[in-house]
């Protein structure tokens, strides 16, 4: 029966999709949790660093760019 065949193909395709999903998504996740995530050298959990120093440098570089294009008094 064509319809049954189509359903079988759909279910196989769905199964393949699910397997691919597991391979591409869950496996790296588990791998990450097993292998990665070591504490820092002092044994502390790593913290999210402040972005402020990078943003301050960005603004300083904008100022330099402005001065180069328009002059310091521009």
């Amino acid at each position, binding site marked *: 029966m064509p319809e049954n065949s189509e359903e079988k193909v759909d279910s196989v395709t769905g199964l393949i999709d699910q397997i691919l999903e597991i391979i591409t998504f869950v496996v790296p*996740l588990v791998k*990450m*949790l*097993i292998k990665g995530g070591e504490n820092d050298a002092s044994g502390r*959990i790593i913290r999210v660093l*402040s972005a402020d120093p990078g943003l301050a440098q*960005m603004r300083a570089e904008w100022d330099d760019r402005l001065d180069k*294009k328009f002059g310091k008094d521009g």
Partner: protein
Amino acid sequence: MRMLYALFVFMALTFAGCGPGALELQTRAANQVALAANAVAPVLITSEQVEGDRAIDAAADKAAARAQLAAVEAKWAPIWTAYKALAVAQDQWATALEKGGDTAAAVEALRASFCKLKVLLPLEVKLPPAVSAVVCLEVGHAGK
């Protein structure tokens, strides 16, 4: 499907109990969140800087350039606010893990802050999928 996996992983991380295994898993996840955020921040800064550089290049005079830069900074301000909230939440989670506190509440606070940031991020910024899955269950709800 992906949401189910994310839910599963999140549940495993958060509610698997208070045994050493569960805490170890959360510690690893907390480290990974920090590593991912610390890797993404320079990418975000570069993206903002490029926008500012373009604004300067396109401006006719310094005043116009400064006005454009202010607009760029205003556009990015919510992202940096969300990033700071994420940093605070991750610090609270890490502290709870190190000193013994309410890790479930800390994880939820982190998830909420991460999801806010994720929605705001420019499309070109790609987060490590595993990390976003651990933290953000409401990917579909968040619209990204």
